[in-house]
């Protein structure tokens, strides 16, 4: 019997090797067809979510709060446009990842928690920093690498921090912020504090071990962590469906018995509603939640990546721009007589001015003094012996 089996498998290999090039191509083609068959349809994926009326979407939120959300999204957009301009002028160096198109995610989610709660994210972070209350001037000055930046010019675009605002950065290694956030959530539980942490990652980060290790421990120990996966559908230039065997990221949480859900990342109110539920659950001691926010970036991965080209077409991006989160929200607020077009334009003028002023502030801020090179490496340098080995004068 065993021999027969072996012969069968040998024969199968021989048969496969016998394939003509045409047959091989046909085979490839059928694989392609299969790929296409599982190509996710984003509309279908989110279809199961109930269609809400305007009233339901507004969740009885105070008009002032709604207008504030609009203001924050507009500021995010104009600030990032100003950032792009400053980058083009050479005022900003290094890597720089813009958030244009994704504003509803951070704005809606951070509105759903309190200022004493924590926020931590990856490197596409300028808007999260702003939303946590860091002044536009301090964010822009950090981008410019200046002394008045929120990390004193030592962090840059990817490493903004503000301990007073409970904004914990700003991390550049894909997925590596999730274990850190788990630690903050653990600390909250350890000290019995009434707080939560929101941690963000991109969809591509969910393939990292750090994501899975953290989800397991977060769910095992029921810590107050809300993980928001910003699924903008491309990890740099790699489409999500080319990087994951499972399209629906929210389902990955089920491997860890963690509640999870999908949010419309182009709808600030859906982000608010879904995050609020997760925050409340965390506050009740019921543990973490994963939120998959389906969104899209209207700009390239970073400043060196064109908006469209090799991995998506101009038409793709234009189509998605039809879902502009700012336009969607502005239309709703206009329909509900919460914010008129005129008021919106006035608001827009204001945030443009603030973005201009942020750039002016950054421009005037001094470069960090060169004797800052050796400061703030260690918290405690009051030790015997040598901490630095470069032989330079300090």
């Amino acid at each position: 019997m065993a021999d027969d089996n072996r012969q069968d498998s040998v024969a199968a290999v021989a048969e496969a090797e016998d394939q003509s090039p045409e047959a091989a191509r046909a085979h490839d083609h059928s694989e392609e067809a299969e790929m296409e068959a599982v190509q996710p349809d984003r509309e279908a994926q989110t279809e199961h979510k109930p269609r809400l009326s305007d009233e339901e979407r507004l969740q009885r939120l105070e008009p002032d709060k709604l207008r504030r959300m609009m203001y924050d999204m507009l500021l995010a957009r104009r600030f990032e446009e100003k950032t792009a301009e400053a980058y083009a002028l050479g005022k900003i160096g290094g890597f720089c990842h813009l958030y244009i198109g994704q504003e509803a995610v951070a704005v809606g989610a951070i509105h759903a928690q309190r200022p004493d709660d924590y926020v931590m994210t990856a490197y596409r972070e300028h808007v999260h920093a702003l939303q946590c209350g860091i002044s536009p001037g301090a964010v822009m000055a950090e981008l410019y690498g200046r002394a008045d930046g929120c990390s004193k010019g030592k962090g840059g675009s990817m490493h903004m921090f503000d301990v007073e605002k409970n904004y914990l950065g700003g991390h550049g290694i894909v997925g590596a912020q999730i274990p850190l956030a788990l630690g903050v959530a653990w600390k909250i539980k350890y000290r019995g504090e009434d707080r939560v942490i929101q941690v963000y990652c991109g969809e591509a980060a969910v393939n990292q071990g750090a994501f899975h290790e953290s989800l397991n421990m977060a769910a095992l120990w029921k810590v107050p962590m809300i993980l928001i996966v910003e699924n903008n559908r491309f990890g740099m230039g790699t489409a999500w469906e080319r990087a994951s065997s499972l399209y629906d990221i929210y389902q990955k949480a089920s491997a860890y018995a963690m509640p999870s859900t999908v949010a419309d990342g182009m709808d600030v109110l859906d982000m608010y509603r879904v995050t609020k539920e997760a925050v409340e659950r965390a506050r009740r001691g019921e543990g973490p939640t994963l939120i998959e926010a389906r969104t899209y970036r209207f700009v390239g991965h970073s400043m060196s990546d064109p908006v469209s080209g090799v991995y998506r077409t101009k038409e793709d991006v234009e189509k998605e721009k039809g879902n502009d989160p700012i336009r969607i929200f502005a239309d709703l607020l206009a329909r509900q007589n919460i914010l008129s077009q005129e008021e919106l334009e006035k608001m827009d003028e204001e945030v443009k001015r603030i973005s201009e002023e942020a750039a002016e502030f950054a421009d005037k801020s001094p470069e960090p003094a060169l004797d800052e090179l050796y400061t703030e490496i260690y918290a405690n340098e009051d030790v015997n012996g040598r901490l630095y080995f470069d032989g330079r004068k300090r």
Partner: protein
Amino acid sequence: MAVITYREALNQALAEEMERDPDVFLMGEEVGVYNGAYKVSKGLLERFGEMRVVDTPITELGFAGLGVGAAMTGVRPVIEFMTWNFAILAFDQIFNAAAKMRSMSGGQFRVPVTFRGPTGAALQLAAQHSQALESQVAHYPGVKVVVPGTPADAKGLLKAAIRDDDPVAVFEGEMLYNLKGEVPEDDDYVIPLGVADLKREGGDVSIITHGKMIHVALQAAAALEKDGVQADVLDLRSLRPLDTDAILATVAKTNRVVLLEEGWAFGGITATIAAMIQEEAFDHLDAPVLRVTQADVPMPYAKGLERAAKPSAELVVEKVNQVLYR
């Protein structure tokens, strides 16, 4: 002073610091119910409860990062790696997060986390379980590294590490856990970081080393003494900060130096020290600075090969004779 083992000394340090500061907790694989893979945490779960002695899944990257995030926001985690070999999975969190958080935030965060576990080869554990990694960790500015070689140093340095406001990596010796020695019972017995200890005095040659290798150095020194050679054995105890004054003092005294480390030669701490000595004490040298390290190969399993790969007292004696031109 009581005579206790290196293991008990570490246990005392942990218990005393947890007693002293409610923000100190111990986390790692098998630290609780199992009492520690090497029984360092014996009895601590019973005494401090499961919020403060936390068994983790096997997930080094995850719980190392947890320690950094928790430390950033105000507590003092002690993260145990079953061995430093397994911590290689967690190096991203040590090197990219712990070491850099303070600097890249412009000084807004302290990261008072302690990472600890055994380093170096034991007996026939083969390539993946027999690595001395302290030089690699000391490479990164932003972390501090201590390597205790005796029970007293184990207690004093671990207590210092836990109380320090920066990430401190403590490299213990798997072969040292049963070593007995006198250890002060004082709750505040803390050995300041960056203070080397002259474990033996002699005027003819300086053997500079750390951790488990001090015992190899002392063995070599004893053999040399029979031959009429008196060796200084300087135990660095701390690699970063590094007690360069103590190094320069022994060099000035003996003018001949052999550096000994358990790990590989390439980029090892001994390379840094050799560079420093020639830069700053060239005129004191009567011979080139020589080194004894592990053979530059992954550790083999077979007994004889393993013995040949490890640094030995015989190799130290040989190098000492070279610097003495004997």
